[in-house]
């Protein structure tokens, strides 16, 4: 019986894969044609000769800093908004009525399920081209993610200290400040740092729709077919991502020891 279930599953998967390839009418011919291969070769050759003028490198450095600032500020805003939304979204003790729990969870899910890039494209209408749209886009998506993680942290921590304060008639705001928050803080900080790492990677790419940072530079130079400049920006992007990966790896190693 179980064997057959697996057979059906595999058959279904095979059908899905076949249907995908057939319905997409992929243009392999065009991709593998002499012309495309030639242009691909030229492209790769141009990519291997980056523009290393000092003035241009300085521009790239500024764009990288802008990317970093976008990600840091977006994550910080998201942590604040996420915390504010996590409080109504969490049922922090058994007698908590948590009236707004459903509504806030829905809001968090909506914020989370729309990717940063789509938020950025939507925000371009009101914030215009530039890093502001990117920062806000990162903040919106990340506050959905962090809000949910924060709410789960508040719901899953030990109840003792908060209960003790509550029994003595301490106000809820003070209970939060002196019991819930200090208890959850290390977890909240580690979630925020983890999202920051993700957001640096996302911020580098976000600019492609015009939302600032390295991505915007990349889209700009690629649009003008300035391949030497494109190549430098691409290399900078990969270095930035590698740097973040390396730093986070080293931090994790040093924390585990």
């Amino acid at each position: 019986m179980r064997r057959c279930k697996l057979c059906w599953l595999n058959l279904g998967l095979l059908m899905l894969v076949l249907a995908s390839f057939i319905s997409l009418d992929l243009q392999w011919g065009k991709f593998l044609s002499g012309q495309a291969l030639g242009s691909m070769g030229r492209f790769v050759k141009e990519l291997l000769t980056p523009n290393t003028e000092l003035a241009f490198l300085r521009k790239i450095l500024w764009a990288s800093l802008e990317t970093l600032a976008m990600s840091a500020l977006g994550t910080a805003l998201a942590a604040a908004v996420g915390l504010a939304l996590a409080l109504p979204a969490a049922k922090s003790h058994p007698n908590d009525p948590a009236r707004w729990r459903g509504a806030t969870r829905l809001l968090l899910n909506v914020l989370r399920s729309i990717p940063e890039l789509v938020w950025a494209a939507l925000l371009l209408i009101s914030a215009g081209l530039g890093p502001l749209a990117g920062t806000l886009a990162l903040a919106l998506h990340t506050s959905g993610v962090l809000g949910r993680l924060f709410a789960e942290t508040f719901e899953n921590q030990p109840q003792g200290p908060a209960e003790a304060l509550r029994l003595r008639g301490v106000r809820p705001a003070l209970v939060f400040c002196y019991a819930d928050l200090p208890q959850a803080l290390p977890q909240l900080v580690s979630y925020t740092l983890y999202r920051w790492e993700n957001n640096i990677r996302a911020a580098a790419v976000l600019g492609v729709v015009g939302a600032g940072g390295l991505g915007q530079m990349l889209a700009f130079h690629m649009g003008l077919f300035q391949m030497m400049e494109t190549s430098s920006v691409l290399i900078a992007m990969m270095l930035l991502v590698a740097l973040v990966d390396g730093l986070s790896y080293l931090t994790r190693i040093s924390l585990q020891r």
Partner: protein
Amino acid sequence: MHVNTAPRRDPAWTGRVFALLATLVVVWPMLVLTEFKPWTLFSPESLPPTLHFLGDFFPPKLEPDFLRLVLFETWRTVAMATAGMTLALFLAIPMALLASRTLSISALTGRMALAPAVFRQGVRWLLMLLRSVPELIWALIFVRVVGLGPTSGVLAIALTYAGMLGKVYAEILESGDALPTQALLRNGAGRLQAFFYGQLPQSSSELTSYTVYRWECAIRSSAVLGFVGAGGLGQQMDASMKMFNGSEVATMLLMFMGLVWLADQVSRLLREALA
């Protein structure tokens, strides 16, 4: 004798004020760099178009023709993700096998010989290179070469995900119990035989569940790839946004959220069924 020696103020007060001031000093240049002027959102130039666009969201456009188009694009999004994942598997599985240290014959006697070690490290670097370029950037490059359409999206997903899958597959294979594989290799089995009978049985469920999870991620990212012209829901959404057509955007956003939710459920069910 003082009975009440507790300070009247919170003892951590000065430290907190200092931390707050230090944060402000760090945050200020960031605000300048990101041109963080949120009040421009409410300026007379940008507020009316925004409100008009948002007002257009309700009701979402539900005409049969448009719905059919959106459904078709949604299917294309799923198809791009599936086709990209299939190609990625074709690249990732051989590379994971080539990179896996537990399939080394020279390592059976202790240290791996120099040439295989260098070769395995080379494969690892190739995998790292593939996944260090985000799929959106691959798509941007392929759109220049192949032109607009889903081909670039499929290729972009295939390359980035080959890098991710290959690395994680190799890690899963290496983290399993190495004894059965080594016993097979010592007794003269080929590397492929050792893989199929020594490694695959113990890590197959972990491998499939990671693959299903990545397929779910691929659906999410293929919806976004359209924004650079790689076909699917994203391309349609980009077009509607450029025309400030709020009701079309609303329909597609709802559709997109439904798709993400559905992929989440299917992936959870599949992982539970395979576990």
